[in-house]
C-alpha cells in the first residue's frame, strides 16, 4: 500500500556480510540484530514500522562517504536518519536497506559570533544550536515543536519551520551552507560563511529534499541577535471568521509578529481539560500573538494589535504581564498534541498550507468531514503563514479506524490544494502524502523532479520510495544518465 521498493531477497540474505563490511568502516557503530534494530524501525509517523536490514552510526564525514560509496558499489539502498521525529515517515526504513543514523555526529564545530553563524554536525539537536550561542546573546530561529530532539540534518531534509518562521523564515532561509556527501562518496561544499557561491543554487534544493539527494555531513547556520523585548497576547473571538479577519488585518497593517497561532474550540477544550492554560471558555477561536523587537517596537505593535482585535470583535484581549503568565498561555499551545492524545490512543497530525482567507471555509469543511468519518479532529494553525495542523484522533486497534483516519487526512489535504494551498507546509511528503502528489503536480512536473533526483542518485539508492508516488528507475525518465558530466551525443556540433 505504501508502494515502497520491493525488498531484494539477495540483499536481505547478505545481512551478516554487509554488517561485517560496515564494521570495517565504523567498528563500534553497527547494529544488525532484530531486537536492537527495533529502535530504528520508524519515526513519528507511528502507523508504519519496518525493521531495517542493518543500521550504521558513523562518527565522521569520512565514514559517511565510505558507507555511501560501499552501498553504491554493492547496489544497497540507504535511508538517512536523524532523531526519527519525522511526522511524514521520511525516515521509515527499508527491509533490504541500511539505516544511516547521523545521531553520533553531534558536535558543534565552530561558533563564529562575528560572522553570525555556527558550524555544526548533522546530529546536533535544534535546541542545542541556540544553547551554544545564547550566552553571546544570539539564537537559531527555526524552532520546530520537536526541537529538543530533532536534529539539524533532519531539519535540513524537511526544511523545518516552527512557530517563529512567520517572521524569521524556515530552515532554508537560515541555512548558509552544507557539506553534502554524495552517493559516490564524494563530498561537496555548497555555500558557507559567505553570501554567494556563484554557480547553480544547489543548496536551495538540498533544503527540503527529504534525504533523497545526499547526506548532510556539516551545516553552517545563520544565528540572530536575540531581540531584547517580547510580548505575548491572548486574543479570544466569538467566531472563527472574526479570528481569521484579525489575522488578515494584522498582516495588512504591516505587522509581522514573531508568532501568530490559532486554536479552534475543540482544541481549546482539549487543552483546558489537560493543563488549564486559562483560555476563554466561551471562545470559538483564540489567537496567541507574540511580538518581539526593541521596547518601542513591541509597544507600538502591541497597541496596534489591540486595536485590530477590538475591531474584529475580540471578547478577550489579554496581555501577558510576566514570564509566568506567558509560559502558561504557551503551555496550552505546546500541549495540544498531548491533550488530543488523551482522547484516543493514536493521532495523525496533518500539515497543509492554505491561503489565510480560506481559513473559515476550510475549518467548517473539516468539521463536516469529522462528522462524516466519525473521528475527532481539532485544529491548530500557524495562522500568519497559513499552515494548518489538523489533529485527527483514532484507535489503530479499532477495525477500520486507521483507514478512515487516513482517508479523512487525505480529504483535508485535497481540500488544501483545491483552495490554492499545498500538501505540506513543514512536515514533508515522506511516505505519508506521496500518493497525493498528483493532486498538485502533473506527471511531467513530477518527472522533472525525479530527473533532478537522478542527477544526484542515478541508481535510486538514497531513501527511495519517499516523496514520489511511483518508483522509476532513472533510465525510464527519458534521459540518458550523464556520467561524470559528459554530454549526450558528444559528436553533435553545438554552436
Amino acid at each position, binding site marked *: 500500500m505504501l508502494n515502497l521498493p520491493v525488498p531484494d531477497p539477495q540483499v536481505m540474505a547478505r545481512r551478516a556480510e554487509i554488517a561485517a563490511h560496515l564494521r570495517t568502516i565504523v567498528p563500534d557503530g553497527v547494529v544488525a540484530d532484530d531486537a536492537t534494530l527495533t529502535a530504528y524501525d520508524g519515526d513519528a509517523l507511528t502507523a508504519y514500522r519496518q525493521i531495517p536490514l542493518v543500521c550504521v552510526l558513523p562518527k565522521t564525514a569520512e565514514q559517511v562517504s565510505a558507507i555511501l560509496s560501499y552501498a553504491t558499489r554493492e547496489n544497497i539502498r540507504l535511508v538517512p536518519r536523524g532523531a526519527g521525529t519525522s511526522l511524514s515517515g521520511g525516515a521509515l526504513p527499508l527491509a533490504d536497506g541500511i539505516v544511516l543514523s547521523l545521531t553520533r555526529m553531534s558536535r558543534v564545530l565552530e561558533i563564529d559570533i*562575528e*560572522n553570525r553563524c555556527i558550524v555544526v554536525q548533522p546530529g546536533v539537536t535544534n535546541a542545542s544550536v541556540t544553547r551554544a550561542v545564547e550566552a553571546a546573546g544570539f539564537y537559531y530561529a527555526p524552532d520546530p515543536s520537536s526541537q529538543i530532539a530533532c536534529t539539524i540534518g533532519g531539519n535540513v531534509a524537511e526544511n523545518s519551520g516552527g512557530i517563529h518562521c512567520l517572521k524569521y523564515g524556515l530552515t532554508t532561509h537560515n541555512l548558509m551552507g552544507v557539506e553534502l556527501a554524495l552517493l559516490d562518496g564524494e563530498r561537496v561544499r555548497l555555500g*558557507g*560563511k559567505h553570501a554567494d557561491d556563484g554557480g547553480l543554487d544547489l543548496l536551495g534544493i538540498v533544503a527540503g529534499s527529504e534525504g533523497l539527494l545526499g547526506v548532510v555531513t556539516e551545516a553552517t547556520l545563520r544565528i540572530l541577535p536575540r531581540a531584547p523585548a517580547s510580548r505575548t497576547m491572548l486574543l479570544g473571538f466569538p467566531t472563527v471568521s472574526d479570528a481569521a479577519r484579525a489575522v488578515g488585518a494584522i498582516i495588512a497593517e504591516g505587522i509581522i509578529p514573531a508568532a501568530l497561532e490559532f486554536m479552534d474550540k475543540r482544541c481549546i477544550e482539549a487543552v483546558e481539560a489537560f493543563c488549564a492554560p486559562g483560555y476563554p471558555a466561551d471562545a470559538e477561536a483564540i489567537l496567541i500573538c507574540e511580538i518581539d523587537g526593541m521596547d518601542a517596537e513591541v509597544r507600538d505593535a502591541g497597541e496596534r494589535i489591540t486595536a485590530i482585535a477590538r475591531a474584529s470583535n475580540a471578547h478577550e484581549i489579554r496581555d501577558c504581564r510576566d514570564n509566568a503568565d506567558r509560559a502558561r498561555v504557551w503551555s496550552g499551545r505546546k500541549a495540544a498534541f498531548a491533550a488530543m492524545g488523551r482522547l484516543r490512543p493514536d493521532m495523525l497530525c496533518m500539515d497543509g498550507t492554505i491561503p489565510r482567507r480560506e481559513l473559515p471555509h476550510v475549518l467548517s469543511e473539516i468539521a463536516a468531514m469529522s462528522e462524516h468519518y466519525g473521528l475527532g479532529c481539532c485544529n491548530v494553525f500557524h495562522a500568519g503563514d497559513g499552515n494548518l495542523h489538523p489533529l485527527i484522533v483514532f484507535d489503530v486497534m479499532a477495525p477500520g479506524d486507521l483507514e478512515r483516519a487516513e482517508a479523512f487526512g487525505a480529504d483535508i489535504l485535497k481540500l488544501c490544494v483545491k483552495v*490554492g494551498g499545498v500538501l505540506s507546509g513543514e512536515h514533508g*511528503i515522506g511516505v505519508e502524502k506521496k500518493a497525493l502528489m498528483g493532486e*498538485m503536480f502533473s506527471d511531467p512536473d513530477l518527472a522533472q*523532479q525525479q530527473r533532478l533526483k537522478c542527477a544526484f542518485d542515478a541508481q535510486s539508492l538514497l531513501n527511495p520510495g519517499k516523496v514520489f508516488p511511483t518508483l522509476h528507475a532513472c533510465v525510464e525518465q527519458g534521459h540518458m544518465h550523464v556520467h561524470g558530466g559528459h*554530454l549526450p551525443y558528444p559528436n553533435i556540433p553545438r554552436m
Partner: protein
Amino acid sequence: MERITPQTEAELSDAVRDAALNRLCFEIVSGGTKRSYGRVTEADRLLDLSHFSGMQTYEPDELIFTARAATPIAEIEATLSARRQMLAFAPADWGPLFGEKSGSATLAGVAAANACGSRRFKSGAVRDHLIGCRFVNGDGEAIKAGGRVVKNVTGFDLPKLLCGAFGTLGALTEMTFRVVPALSRAPAIAIRDCHADEGLSLLRKAAGLPFEATGLAYLPAQLCALSTALHAAHLSQANGLALIRIEGAEDPVIDKIARLRDIFSKQNLTVLEDDVTAALFAEIGNGTPFRQHNSDIWRLFVPSTRAYEALAESEASFWYADWAGEVLWLGLPASREVEERLRKITAKFGGSAMLMRAGAQARSRLSVFEPEPPARAALTRAVKTAFDPMHLFNPGRMYEDV
C-alpha cells in the same frame, strides 16, 4: 540572429521542441538588459520571452502576487507600492551597467541573474521570495514548481534552483512571489570619516545588534564624491562613510536611531533623511558608481570578517562594500592576473569571485563564475542535463558546457 517570440506557453513549447529536432540552441532574453552578464552564449536563435508580460493576480492580504515572467520590475513595483507593499530583496536595476536602459529589468531577468540590492542582507535573495513558478524545460514540457503559499515542502524546491541559473535550466513563463509590507520610515545613520577597516568593523558590529538593519554599506571617499544622493545631503566630502539603514514604524525607528547614536557616540554621525537614504541605497544596490566608471567589475563574496583583508589583497582602488562587507564591488581589470589574485583570496577565506562586467573576449577567456571543484562541477552538469538534456538554453552561459 533569428528572433523567436512565442505568444503562449504552448508556442514556447513548440519552439523548444523544434529547436531540439533541428539541434539549434537559444539565447533567452526577457528585458534584454543583462545580455552581457555571464559568459558569452553562442546561440543560434534568440528566444524572446517579452510577450509573457503582465500581472496576473495580486493578493495583498495574502502577501503574494503571480505575474508573467517578463513583466517589468517597474510595473510590479508600482502596483505593489499602491498597496504599500514591496519585494523584500530590493530587485536591482543593473541594465545601465551594461549600457542598457534603466528601468527595463524584468522579474525573470532579475531572478535568473539573482540581482538583489542592499536589503538582501536582512531579507534574503530572490530565491527566498520566489515561491512558485512555471517554466518550459529542454524537452519542451511546461512544468509547474512550488506553489502559491509561503510555507511549502511539497516536493523539491525547483524555484530556488532556477534563481541564479542564468536561464540555463529552463525558460520561465510565470512566477509567484511573496511580498512584504513597505515600512513607513527608512532613515539611515551615516558614520562619517572612517577608514575602510574601521568602517567595515562598525558595520559588523551593527549587524550583531538586534536592530534588524536593512542596509549596511561602506563607501570610501572617492565614491562619496561621486554619489548624487550624498551630494544632495552635503556629504560628498566625507572621507569614507559607513551606512546603517533602519526601517519600521515611526516610534520604533526614532528609538532605534537614538540608540544607535548612543552606541556609536564616539563616531562622527549624521542621520540621513528617508529620501536621501532611499536614493543612496538604490545607487549602492544598482552599482550606480560604476555607471560612469569605465572599469571592468568584479564582485567578491567573502565572510564579513574577511572583507578588509580581501579588499587589501585585491589591490582594488575603486570599490565599495555592501551587506556588511559580504559583497565587495571592485573596479579591477578582467585579466588573468586579477583573476588569479581573486581566486587566491576566495581559496584562502572562503567565498567566490564573479566577473560582473567585461568585454566579450575577456568573458570567454576567463572564468566568469568561481570555478567548481570536480565533484561539484559534475553535479552541476548532471543537474543541467536533468532540465535541459540537449543543452538548448543559454549554452555556455555559466561554465563551458553549462
